């Protein structure tokens, strides 16, 4: 490994911070999350640029990202060399990967072909930048693959230890508790797209065999954006070119000295060349004069990028109606188009979700909805008192709401399928859905109906129904429905997601019919 430089110390600190924040993006006994990894996205210029372009308005949450962009004007791509955790990981592993030389396909204008369509699509209302944002790529690989894998492995070991030791395993419990409470995911969750998330991450590592920081230099849209800005800035290296007598920079530079001239839009400010210069010639200075670096990109690349963006934003708009019916978004999301403008697919809401209710979409939300969060009630429901997803969302795509306000947000509406539901289909009691419904006045109620069972015996069965005005679509009913496979009650998406009426505190509930008015909901009424 290289000797310890200040850039390396900064890199390691930020990587550690990233990992600590990653672990803190989890319920830890308090309704508010102290710190989450969303800071990295709020300070991410690509997130800021793409989200603001898409929403066409200033987003105060993303101000830090704009500030980093402005800083890049003066300091170049310092973010890449000092902060970016993905870059740090690449620097840490690259020494162990033998290089075979640059990949032809990537040496051209590939990075602009990636960045321009993404930004153009943003301008057209589809915020896709997160798909290739380095921080998001890393976070998703961790959230969907590596962290669950780690949890699965450790917990599996702990479990099999029980098979070996039985109750004596309790002796080791304090140690395991520490691990469980601070390092493991709370529950084992299998995510769709785990493979793709891990694959993209591994692919970025794989690119290291062609050259150092190949991803950062040749593809990364965030780096490319910062590079574009830094070209305009006053910071330059002297001497700009390789010195004829030494040329050691070519060896030290992780990114751009395979041409004779330092490319400021590729330089990540690691300062290796300056620190290692045998004759201490190399300086980075704020100088007005800009050495000739040639055009940013050819006109055809620019135009092609724009066209690519249009195709991306407008080419995949077909929606299968049946699939749309189950397209449930996190609480507080009221408009799909608005959501797609702001969601950067970072995966944090899915990481933090208390009941593992949120999963990344593959094609359910259309091609441009890939990696956006979907609520899958059969796997997990939206916990009534929890507001974590809104708290960690870096862009406000999921609004950060107070508890009462979040409880009134409508995710969808529950609908019974009487062909499956036991009290209807089998004429026997069940009511697990009503039991679990968290709405104080119960959005699922039941009526006592006297009927003849299929065994010929007369009995009273409680048949459930949904009170639409009270249902917020949290999905706990679908989650706990004891039927195997398909639930007999399902939450479906609704267009009108106006929040439920505020329920004035007890005793009278003006909006809803008083529960005692109906003999069916009177706890002591009817016969038992």
């Amino acid at each position, binding site marked *: 490994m290289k000797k310890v430089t200040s850039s390396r110390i900064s890199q390691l600190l930020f990587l550690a911070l990233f990992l600590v924040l990653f672990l803190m993006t989890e319920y830890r006994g308090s309704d508010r999350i102290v710190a989450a990894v969303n800071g990295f996205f709020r300070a991410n210029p690509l997130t800021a640029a793409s989200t603001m372009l898409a929403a066409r308005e200033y987003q105060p949450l993303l101000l830090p990202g704009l500030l980093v962009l402005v800083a890049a004007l003066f300091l170049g791509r310092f973010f890449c060399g000092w902060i970016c955790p993905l870059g740090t990981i690449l620097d840490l592993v690259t020494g162990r990967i033998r290089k075979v030389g640059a990949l032809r396909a990537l040496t051209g204008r590939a990075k602009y072909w990636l960045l321009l369509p993404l930004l153009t699509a943003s301008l057209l209302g589809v915020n896709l930048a997160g798909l290739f944002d380095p921080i998001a790529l890393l976070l998703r690989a961790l959230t969907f693959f590596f962290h669950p894998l780690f949890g699965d492995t450790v917990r599996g070991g702990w479990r099999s230890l029980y098979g070996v030791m039985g109750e004596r395993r309790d002796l080791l419990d304090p140690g395991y508790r520490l691990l469980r409470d601070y390092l493991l995911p709370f529950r084992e969750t299998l995510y769709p797209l785990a493979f793709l998330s891990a694959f993209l991450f591994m692919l970025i590592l794989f690119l290291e065999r062609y050259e150092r920081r190949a991803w950062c230099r040749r593809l990364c849209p965030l780096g490319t954006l910062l590079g574009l800005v830094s070209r305009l800035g006053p910071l330059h290296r002297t001497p700009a070119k390789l010195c004829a007598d030494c040329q050691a920079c070519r060896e030290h530079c992780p990114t751009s000295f395979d041409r004779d001239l330092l490319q400021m839009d590729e330089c990540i400010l690691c300062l290796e060349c300056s620190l290692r210069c045998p004759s201490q010639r190399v300086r980075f200075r704020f100088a007005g004069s800009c050495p000739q670096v040639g055009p940013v990109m050819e006109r055809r690349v620019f135009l092609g990028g724009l066209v690519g963006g249009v195709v991306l934003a407008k080419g995949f708009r077909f929606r299968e109606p049946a699939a749309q019916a189950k397209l449930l978004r996190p609480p507080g999301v009221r408009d799909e188009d608005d959501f797609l403008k702001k969601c950067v697919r970072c995966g944090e809401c899915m990481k933090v979700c208390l009941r593992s209710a949120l999963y990344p979409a593959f094609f359910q939300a259309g091609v441009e909805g890939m990696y956006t969060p979907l609520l899958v009630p059969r796997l997990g429901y939206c916990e009534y008192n929890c507001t974590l997803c809104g708290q960690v969302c870096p862009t406000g795509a999921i609004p950060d709401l107070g508890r009462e306000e979040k409880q009134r947000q409508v995710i969808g509406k529950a609908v019974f399928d009487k062909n499956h539901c036991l009290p209807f289909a089998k004429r026997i009691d069940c009511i697990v859905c009503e039991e679990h*419904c968290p709405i104080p006045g119960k959005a699922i109620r039941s009526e006592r109906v006297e009927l003849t069972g299929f065994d010929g015996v007369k009995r009273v069965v409680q048949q459930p129904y949904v009170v639409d005005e009270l249902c917020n679509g949290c999905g706990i009913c679908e989650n706990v429905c004891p039927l195997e496979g398909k639930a007999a009650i399902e939450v479906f998406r609704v267009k009108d997601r106006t929040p439920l009426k505020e329920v004035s505190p007890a005793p009278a509930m003006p909006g809803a019919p008083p529960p005692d008015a109906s003999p069916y909901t009177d706890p002591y009424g009817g016969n038992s």
Partner: protein
Amino acid sequence: MERRQFIKILGMSSLFLHGWLRNLFAAQGPVVAVAQGTDHAAITRKALAALGGMQRFVKPGQTVVVKPNIGWDRTPEYAATTNPVVVKTLVEECLKAGAKRVKVFDRTCNDARRCYASSGIESALHGMKGVEVKHLEEERFKKVALNGKVLKEWELYGEALSADVYINVPVAKHHGLSRLTLGMKNVMGIMGGNRGSIHKNIDQALADVNASFRPQLTLIDATRILTAHGPQGGNLADVKVLNQVIASTDIVAADAYATTLFGLKPADIAVTRAAYQRGLGEMDLDKMRIVRV
């Protein structure tokens, strides 16, 4: 008398004796201690004392499970979970009686972390020596042969099965299906698997489990009760403050008495009826010794 004749008479007489024996025991009947007062720790201790104190149940060095209802993510005033003061007092009494370890847990319906925190039970017991507030671990469930009417076998929680003493501490509240959830329904908190599926025959299923798994002591928290929209509640208008706890070694008797707090008769609750018919305990209020303290 010939042997055959003797056996006949014996068999015949046992038929009559059966009812007589029952009456004989009923004369003493199970003790149901009912304590009332605004100091919930004090009434818990009083109720225990009326049954002979915790040392009657817990011997030094034993492992005790105290099983409250922590099923829902609600704060204590909503009466959806057991009063943390009552739980804490019981745990203290167990320790005083010499318990080596006291374990407190429940299989929650909402997220376990939130339930443990919101119920106030986790924080009430925090830092107490020898006390473990635990989340359930899937691998500890053990298949138990119940050979009941509707449940032949079910997974029950290993730490509950292996405990020397098991103390059942439900909160008395309304339930949409079983009308009330009391002591016998609280046992669902140690049941594994798809618990919802027993709802189709909940009274017999709960009688099956309770016939096989029997808590040494049941203490029902009725310091405040949830009278409607149970078992989750969420509306303080549905909560009634009674400042009572009911304790008995007879789970059916405790449930039967607690039923009266809701203005119902013990026989109105199908679970109680089913358990009584199986001889799991007494539900006739006249045949219990109700000790008010």
